[in-house]
């Protein structure tokens, strides 16, 4: 649930967190992003970086320029005000090859929910998601908006390696993974798009607040799309407005 009033949480002398709720919910995420935007517009002295997550905004500060308790109270007051919702003009249409070697858990997820694999693909690609948080590893985009009918707790034991571009679900969360890493989530598919390329401008394709739609793509197109992505061409389509 989203709290009636946001809470100020201590994170040592270099940060504090403003927490809006304890669950993954669209209104909570929207308030986090609204506060993030409001702080960016105000440029308060001493703030170094802000990190929006599903339910909170962490503010990193320079302890030479700001005192966490004072700056925290100021930001908490701002968080309690009715803030304008952030306009999110950026919508990404991200190609995903589902199932088979690309999404080795698709069939198991379908069986668990008593659905056909095609129905899981349909339900996973139907919503318009929002990037609520980028974290854990560089470019790992955590989405809000998963169909509750697909929610499924994590695997009992994580896999030591899952490939770059993995599209997965864990609990009520949906994820676009950037680089190869261990994961205990359920792998539904893969995108050839590269969401994190250090030598590219922008380095990170997705930003907190961006909207995302998954476009089911035939496996036969993987090689061509992967080659295009390798050559630096975008394979996700950016739609504004």
């Amino acid at each position, binding site marked *: 649930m989203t709290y009636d009033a946001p809470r100020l949480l201590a*994170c040592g*002398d270099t940060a504090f967190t403003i*927490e809006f709720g304890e669950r993954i919910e669209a209104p909570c995420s929207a308030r986090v992003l609204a506060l993030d935007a409001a702080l960016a517009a105000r440029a308060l002295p001493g703030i170094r970086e802000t*990190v929006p997550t599903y339910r909170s905004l*962490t503010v990193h500060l320079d302890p030479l320029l700001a005192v966490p308790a004072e700056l925290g109270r100021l930001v908490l007051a701002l968080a309690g005000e009715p803030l304008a919702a952030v306009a999110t003009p950026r919508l990404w249409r991200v190609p995903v090859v589902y199932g088979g070697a690309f999404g080795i858990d698709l069939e198991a997820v379908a069986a668990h929910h008593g659905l056909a694999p095609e129905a899981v693909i349909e339900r996973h690609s139907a919503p318009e998601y929002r990037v609520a948080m980028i*974290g854990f590893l*560089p470019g790992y985009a955590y989405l809000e908006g998963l169909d509750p009918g697909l929610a499924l707790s994590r695997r009992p034991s994580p896999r030591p390696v899952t490939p770059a571009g993995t599209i997965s679900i864990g609990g009520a969360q949906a994820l676009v993974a950037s680089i190869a890493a261990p994961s205990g989530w359920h792998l539904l598919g893969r995108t050839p798009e590269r969401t994190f390329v*250090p030598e590219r401008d922008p380095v990170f394709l997705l930003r907190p607040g961006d909207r995302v739609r998954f476009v089911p793509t035939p496996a036969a197109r993987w090689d061509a799309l992967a080659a295009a992505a390798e050559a630096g061409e975008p394979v996700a389509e950016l739609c504004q407005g």
Partner: protein
Amino acid sequence: MSAHLRLARLAGAASIQDGGRHGYLRYGLSASGPMDPLAFAAANRLVGNPADAAALEFGLAGARLRAESGAVRLALAGAPSGMRLDGEPVAAHRSLVLPDGAELTIERPREGVFAYLAVSGGFAVRSVMGSRALHQRAALGGLDGRALREGDRLPLTASPTGGTDVCLDPVPLQRTAPIRVVLGPQDDLFSETGLATFLHETFTVSNRADRMGYQLDGPAIAHGPGGFNIVSDATVAGSVQVPGSGRPIVLLADRQTTGGYPKIATVISADLRRIAQRRPGEPVRFEAIDLATATRLAREEAARIAALGAQLKPVESETERLMAANLAGAAVDALGTED
């Protein structure tokens, strides 16, 4: 042949670090940078560099470096390590010139974990996203996005001999003093017993300790009735997260930027280097302090780093002092004691 230093031998962990890659936390990338910022800054100041120039970080490592392309001015600071220049003992915490063709042997530290080797002008690896610091999980920065290996050729700037022979008093490692924390952000998710365990028991650094974080062994810290799964939120350097096992993990320079375990407390920024310098098996006790004190200590630590430049002394006076005392060995042995 462009200027470089050869890492002829390496046993242990080593990477190139600088002041860190800042501004990308919201994209999931932690800053990296030195595990002991004060020792790192000292090594750089000794060779006339800005405090945040790219230098080598050794983690419980021994190494041999060879000047292959001309003389190089360098200095070692941090965890006390024996050093020899072509077999002759030389002191750390002083700047010296490694002549062309000469070899510098750095022994595994006697105490502590991290030692820093700075060269005049810094290491000339490519800057990636504004920093030369290695972030190993992301394969970013450092030498080709990886940790250093035996045989590596470490690129230097064109004139790596700038500066003069100077020395600094070594920084004590404080290997037994309590690590100071500010409780929160999720201390309310722990039982009273759990909080008491955290604040009154002694933990030890486990073998699962690296630049991402140190897992501690010791009594399990009990969570409250709400359990130990939270919706992931952001971490900071020093976050003490407690997973279901009850064994705390202190998150450090290369940490994951978000996590789903409750964080009982945050190590104050001034004490990050003090926990970083503790080895597996060494004790860790925590002491809760208030935020105002933590801010004062952060400012004192920044002042300590800023003052290094003014504390540089000519090497002659240091040599005379050691000669007069005739206790060079004893002075070296005292490096690890409490201040």
